[in-house]
């Protein structure tokens, strides 16, 4: 279960509305490498994970990604909130506005709605952790492409924070994968000397 703290993990305080930015940042809300995909991927994979370290890692990173989903949602919300209809139209956000108004809808930057097809849950610890390592790198990459597209410091700071978290998560998943590999390679047979009678050829 979860318990809610009424505070963001990292503050979002964006002065200037900017619907064009909202429209691309939303990809980290509901896009292929976004926080919703990350969270639901890890929280679903944990049920069949092995080794205490890797299970806890999935559980807790999946939980932190929920806090990141909230941060990204707050960014989109604040970037849209005080935007005028003219600003929204001029930014090319008319189509989004038509379907969702100023609501925060989980979709990718190009408009593809969130789908579970963005993620995989294989039920195999090596497969799942390997996917998670890639997922963290893809999220880091997305944050970098977003950072390249703005110079608003109010937007840059939370983006930089979120990017750094992906680097930390990648490290932790790497350690979890190593634990799982070590565990799978551990000899689990208790070998005893072969009794003589089994060596007789008669």
């Amino acid at each position: 279960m979860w318990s809610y703290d009424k505070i963001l993990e990292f503050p979002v305080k964006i002065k200037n509305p900017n619907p064009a930015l909202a429209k691309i940042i939303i990809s980290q809300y509901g896009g292929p490498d976004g926080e919703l995909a990350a969270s639901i991927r890890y929280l679903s994979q944990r049920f069949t994970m092995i080794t205490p370290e890797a299970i806890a890692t999935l559980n807790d990173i999946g939980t932190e990604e929920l806090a990141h989903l909230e941060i990204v949602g707050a960014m989109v919300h604040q970037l849209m909130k005080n935007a005028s209809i003219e600003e929204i139209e001029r930014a090319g956000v008319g189509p989004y506005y038509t379907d969702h108004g100023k609501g925060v809808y989980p979709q990718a930057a190009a408009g593809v709605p969130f789908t579970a097809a963005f993620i995989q849950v294989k039920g195999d610890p090596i497969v799942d952790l390997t996917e998670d390592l890639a997922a963290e790198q893809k999220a880091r990459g997305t944050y970098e492409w977003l950072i390249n597209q703005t110079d608003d410091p109010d937007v840059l700071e939370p983006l930089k924070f979120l990017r750094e978290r992906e680097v930390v998560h990648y490290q932790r998943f790497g350690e979890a994968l190593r634990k799982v590999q070590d565990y799978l390679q551990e000899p689990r047979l208790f070998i005893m000397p072969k009794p003589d009678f089994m060596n007789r050829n008669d």
Partner: protein
Amino acid sequence: MININNMMELKRELSAVHMMLEELQLYLNTHPSDRDAIAKRNLFAKQYKGLKDEFNKSYGMISQDDSFSPYPWQWVDEPWPWEYEANFKL
């Protein structure tokens, strides 16, 4: 009357201490035998609890399951964390 600056200062501290907790907890999940890190984590957990209690006393509910409410029920009070006004300036 609530002093907004003091409230934001407390949120800043909460946020910093929470970050240390988050970081140490993830680290400990893959390094469960690091005694120093456990001691640090427990210290930050104590600090976080203290700061949340202080926030609860002065500025209202912050923790769904731990904070106490006066009358009327305070959990519904705005602003919620995703609003501009709820956040401190970096």
